């Protein structure tokens, strides 16, 4: 399955639901969407990774890029992820200490400000 991206506004936050595989082929589409959101004024972004089936280092790089853009505009950029195989990737790469990770969209919307 390739990448699917769905955006939803929830009060002052933007929820981006990502599905499928984030890899060297599809990551540019994710980057493009995140840049579009930032350029469109979205300051508080929640990226839901629950439907992601595969994530590689290119995808991690794109997520770090999103985080940097959000911080540069005094915004927030948090992730929703409760899949052990994805959490393991964040742990192995040390990025679990870089991102705010929430187990559910509800938790992320409540905590991400």
């Amino acid at each position, binding site marked *: 399955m390739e990448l699917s991206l769905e955006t939803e506004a929830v009060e002052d936050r933007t929820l981006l639901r990502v599905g499928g*595989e984030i*890899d*060297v*082929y599809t990551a540019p589409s994710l980057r493009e969407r995140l840049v579009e959101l930032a350029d469109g004024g979205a300051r508080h972004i929640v990226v839901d990774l629950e439907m992601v089936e*595969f994530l*590689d*280092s*290119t995808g*991690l*790089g*794109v997520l*770090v*890029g999103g985080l*940097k853009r959000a911080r540069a505009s005094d915004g927030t950029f948090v992730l929703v992820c409760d899949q052990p*195989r994805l959490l393991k*990737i964040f742990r*192995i*790469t*040390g*990025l679990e200490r870089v991102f705010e990770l929430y187990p559910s969209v509800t938790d992320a919307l409540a905590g991400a400000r």
Partner: protein
Amino acid sequence: MPTVRLRFSPSPAHVRTARLVAVACGRRAGVAVDRLEELKLAVGEACARAVARHRRGGLSDLVLLELVDDAGFEVRVLDYAPADPGNPDDPEETVVAEAGVALLAESADVLKVTPGADGIGSTISLWWPTATHR
């Protein structure tokens, strides 16, 4: 001799195909089911690295994936790009490089990176145990 050889043009679109072929061969070779996700991740990282090296070097040469079903399961990914330090000023690229190495090192039981002769190309070798060879 490699059990399977796959050559592909340095396009990101083919990395997924390489991952799927490697997982199918690994499963058939007897790699434990709970290691197949690591195999998929590591092969994807190694192939993505090779594709990126070729593209940065402007090379259209094919990347080579070799899968060896003998004394465990060995995966070799060969590129033919000249030595390339990448762009250390690009934070996204730096994350990708560091995360890629971490994921490769953690996913396979054995990881070797061998430079090619005269500094041209490199080979990433990965190894997993199988049901008949641990």
